[in-house]
């Protein structure tokens, strides 16, 4: 093989361009600015009595399969449950730690869980095909048409929300709370907030909800723990929670205030900014290749002592 130096660079450049074009879809990272005008819900867990009406209405609105036991069966609350492919929201019951002791006089805490609709959702960042999207009104919604079923969203979600139809052989989908996107867009209410008899959930703009949460804490001294869950967790969520018990004891994961996508997207985008890294590596390797005489083909280097430089490392070895 005889390739001139000139043609080597020509082809090398073309190859690099082709490689760049191949990966040319990576765009600059858009850091989502959490809009305080987006909508959300403030859940006051001290109000919830665990009637499961939210579960029932959600099930009906989304035409989910009927559960084995009716929604009026409240003994199911004795066991911790999570959302699954047949339920977008569940209510769990958490007993205070001193239950069963003489000092126990407190009510259990009921917590309604559903998708938190993060400001900077890990699932949206993770989704390989953009099947999950964060909408302007705050909802994180799913488009089954794009989905390939890789379940990376489930891996990514810090709240373990998306569920998957494992039992379906054909067209399984990722299922999760939609924040009743279509209804809310039309000026309606999420099914759960609409039906809740106690108005455990207050539906409104996030900035108003934060004010309300602070108002509630200020006006009910000693009632709540000093923490609005979801205000800062994972960069903030559309659903906010107030509670009278520490959040770790009522089924909430303790999470960093950093949104996980910031790290991964930073790595991803700095690596692919202007395609610098791949192109530099490509050029570097090309240079080494030329220097070691690959082009001259067949020139045997029989030296037993050789310098191997890889990623700038030099190592002497026998």
């Amino acid at each position, binding site marked *: *093989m005889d390739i001139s130096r000139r043609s080597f660079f020509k082809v*090398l450049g*073309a*190859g690099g361009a082709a490689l760049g074009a191949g*990966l040319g879809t990576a765009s600059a990272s858009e850091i989502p600015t959490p809009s305080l005008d987006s909508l959300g819900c403030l859940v006051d867990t001290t109000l919830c*009595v665990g009637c499961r*009406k939210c579960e029932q209405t959600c099930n009906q609105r989304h035409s989910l399969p009927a559960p084995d036991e009716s929604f009026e069966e409240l003994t199911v609350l*004795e066991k911790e449950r*999570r*959302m699954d*492919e047949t339920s977008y929201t569940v209510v769990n019951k958490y007993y205070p730690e001193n239950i069963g002791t003489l000092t126990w006089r407190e*009510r259990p805490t009921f917590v309604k869980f559903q998708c938190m609709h993060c400001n900077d959702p890990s699932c949206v*960042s993770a989704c*390989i*095909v*953009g*099947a999950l999207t964060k909408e302007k009104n705050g909802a994180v919604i799913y488009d089954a048409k794009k989905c*390939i*079923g*890789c*379940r*990376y969203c489930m*891996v990514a979600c*810090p709240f373990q929300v998306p569920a*998957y*139809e*494992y*039992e*379906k*052989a054909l*067209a*399984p989908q990722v299922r999760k709370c939609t924040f009743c996107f279509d209804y809310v867009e039309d000026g309606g*209410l999420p099914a759960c*907030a*609409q*039906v*809740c*008899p106690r*108005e455990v959930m207050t*539906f409104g703009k996030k900035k108003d909800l934060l004010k*309300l949460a602070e108002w509630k804490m200020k006006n009910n001294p000693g009632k709540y723990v000093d923490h609005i869950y979801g205000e800062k967790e994972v960069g903030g969520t559309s659903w906010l929670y107030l509670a009278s018990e520490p959040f770790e004891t009522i089924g909430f*994961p303790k999470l960093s205030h950093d949104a*996980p996508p910031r*790290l*991964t997207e930073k*790595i*991803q985008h700095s*690596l692919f900014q202007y395609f610098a890294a*791949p192109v530099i*590596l490509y050029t570097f*390797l090309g240079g080494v*290749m030329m220097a070691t005489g*690959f*082009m001259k083909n067949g020139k045997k*280097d029989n030296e037993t002592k*050789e310098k191997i430089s*890889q990623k700038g490392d030099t*190592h002497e*070895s*026998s």
Partner: protein
Amino acid sequence: MSHHEIAAPVQEKFLTPGVMVMLGLMVIGGMSVATRFIFGIGAVSNLNNQYPWGIWIGIDVATGVALAAGGFTTGAIAYVFNRDQYHAVIRPALLTAMLGYTFVVLGLLVDIGRYWNITSPIFNHNGNSVLFEVAICVMIYLHVLYFEFIPIVTERFMGKVNLPGFLSGMNNSVETILAVADKVAAKVMFLFIIAGIVLSCLHQSSLGSLMLIAPSKVHPLWYTPILPLLFLLSAFAAGYPMVVFESILVSKSFGREPEMDVLTPLAKYMPVLMGLYMAVKVGDMIVRGSYVYLLDGTYQSNSFLVEMIVCVFMPFVLLLFRRVRRSPGLLFFASTIFVLGIVLNRINVFVVAYTPPYKLVSYFPSVGEIFITAGLVATLMFTYRVCVFIFPVLGAHPHEMTRKRRSSQKASTKTTSTVSVIFFAVVLITIPHSANAADGSQKIKNLLPLEENITPSIADAPKMMMINSKVVNKYSDFYEPVRFMHSKHANVLKDCSICHHRMPREEGDKYGEPVSMLQLQEREQEPVSCSACHELPFDPKNLHTPGLKGAYHQLCMDCHREAEQVPHMRGAIQYSAMVRGPIARTLDTRAPTDCLACHAKKVPNHNELVKLTGSVSPVDVTKNCLSCHKEEGEAILKTSHWNWHGPSPYTVGHEKRMDLGKKTNTINNFCISLSGNWARCTSCHIGYGWEDDNFDFTDMTKIDCLVCHDQTGKYKKAPPSAGLPVKNLDLITIAQNVGRPSRDTCGMNCHFMGGGGDAVKHGDMSSFLSKPDKSHDVHMGVSGGGLDFRCQDCHKTRNHMISGRSVSVPVAEGDLSCEYCHTDKPHIGSELIDHHLNKHTAHISCQTCHIPIYSKKNPTKVYWDWSDAGKAIKPSKDKYGKSNFSDKKGSFIWKEAIKPEYAWYNGTVKRYIIGDRINENGVTELTKPVGSLKDPSSRIYPFKVHRGKQISDAVHKRLITPKLWKGFWDHKDWNKAAEDGMKASGMEYSGKYEFVETAMYWGLTHEVVPKEQALSCAECHASLTKAPHCGACHQERPDVDFEALVHKGVDFKVLAEQGRDVKALIGKTNYIDYKALGYDGDPIETGGRFDKLGLGIKNDKKIPLKK
């Protein structure tokens, strides 16, 4: 490039026992794959919502990619750094990489749920997604690998193309294509080699970035922002050990001499790369401080220790020794251990380290997952073998081992592979074990004396409010309106501002100011209604003001707190202020907390639900009902309405029995007994066809749903048809319009008609209650301000068990008394007399004063003489127009607007049970209230007493249950009727009968008059009719007329003018007859039963119970 001379296809025996094993694994794996594609991922795997990724990602994909690193690392050393001596290993490494990546994609197709959409990333880009980058990189790299393989194909076939049969004509063109491909490939190959290395670096590292999105879910021993760097370094380090592992394995497999001349020099790079990886990893661990987890003993830390010490540190140290690098066995061992370490690392990062926040189930790969993974690996190895047999991949001039060398070599490789396999098995076994072990861990005095002058006053409060707001119903309409007993709550709470907690300061002020009762009274201001502030929910301007529905529920449920909802978990029991006093028991004292206690569920429109056509029988209707309401059907089977017997907790001497009832052993002095008279008596039974003793009480299809749930008013039971309805009813229309029972279904169909006609039996119930006015019954009144209660508003019902107590029948399915709503201190709003009235409640039941007369409108039977039956007496009509004689039944006395008879009653009843001996010295009392003046739990109750004469056995001295229906009423022969009837009851009849006097007490609780028409003080207390009336104790007050006050109440004069038969009662005092009740006289004068009373005590002989 032309190294044609160094590689050639293998020419050995293809099928070996090892290959057979591979084929076996491929078949099992193939079947598992088929199962996955036919029945879904859930059918073969243990993947779940907590663990979305398992070994398919951890091994098939992540490990697959890592172990294919040999491809680019050898490419780098051989081509980029142009070390020709390594060309011997480049082809096997390339083939491994190509097949490795191909199988990564095949593995992904199994794992991703929507595999047909695998091309979606090409069209739907998410540049933020690490997985997107990995996917695109792998896709391109796979094609690069295929391209790099072209020279091997051209080398094998160029000039040797010899297609079979008719295809042979294409030999030349194929040759041309191959020639062109070879030429092009040769010219640009270096581009692809570099591209391959760049792409590999990118996705090998990005594979590590994948888990960075889940910082809270990955164990801190593995989670580090430099995970991508660690993945890249470990891939670098894995490349050469993989080449060594593979080369020696292949050599051994084909019985060749290991290519130590290439492998030993290659091995010297290995500790460098391993050391670098280990240094960065340990450094990162120290910087992040994650070493604190190292010795916590969890399966995760143990797995980390194995990964790092055994699988990285150990091979690193070994490979520092030249002896190890030169020994095929030891080199193979060290390389294999490191390769396994990389496998373990990838499994650790993707599976072991993964800690879901809510771990409801744990994950361990299922047999199906393992089969598929093993099948894929076997297929890969098989394909590799096929390829090396076809293509020039392996060295062309193998050195055959000498027999001696071969056996020792064999032994050493065998030992090392055995050690490796055992090691890997141990790792696989320990991980699940430790995983399972870890699962175990996880007022004010009134300013003014009389409240008539006070605003607001509880006395002015509305009695009951129907909470039926459109605002509430806008968003959820599950329930019927709430009948909110406002005065009941006002009575107990005594303070309006507990609920009416805030008042708007001006028009439109949503937040308002907090108010107190004192403020309200000072301002003479009535509290505002809830809806003054609370409207639709989530008003952005007033988010702190709950909507009306929320406000109601929040306020109500602050008192009605969860306690009852979970039977075994009684929390803080909220003792209800509603029920107090001697009759209250724990269960009754809790404020209701379930939804249905306050509002009934709306009955859906049954038009669509009832799917009946054509002519249907009543049983067909029931079957249709049961198709949805099986549970309700089962509940009915347990009720006394169905069984006509049940628990008799209030019948003295039979408290624990379940069998007392009409069906079995009670008797009355109307139509006497059920036995033998079924079809007539059972026409009121809520079933179809109870014609004899053989009725099947377990057959749900015989339940008559319509008699209670009919809303059309058309459903009627035929009188003597054993419960069947009248003919020619449009049952379908009736069934399609079912709803909640009403006074018409309970009353008009049965209870108002007890005894076979209107008001015959019950003194306090008649057809007039269907639409009475308030003065007839405050609760049931539909006009004049009555509360329009349905029966079940008081007779609370659960599982078709209807609460209520009766004197006449033994069965009780739940307690009920006036106090449940009115409390034992019910009198409010008139401070001067409330105190006196509320003292009465311990001695006198509510009914005594508030039901001064019974059967106000419809005459009821009070006397029935069966001994006249069959006699030739000429019937005549009484003043009410009722006949006083019937040939079949004997003579009767009817009465209207009757003063009740009063008796002490503690809630229990003495009852005549069939077979009991009669009272030979007087009247046999079929039911008699138990109680006495000296019993503190007894109070004075009003009763209707029905008296009569009925047939009795003259010898055995017990009441006879005569067969009347199709018996005496046909043949008029008492003897035969007695004989047949006693036979049906299973008792012996002596053949001689007599007629004995009986009496039966009937409690009075319905037809409660408004308070203005209750008995006045003067009607009982003669002492108060004389001047100075109350003045004997109270000082004269200019604003109070004591005489008027003591006479406030029912005025019989007015009633008589209205046409009621109450002339005899006008001006009556000592209404309840103190002496008959055991008092010496008017207790005001002679003293109460336990206490001295007030002033003017003339008689203090009584020894008070209290000290």
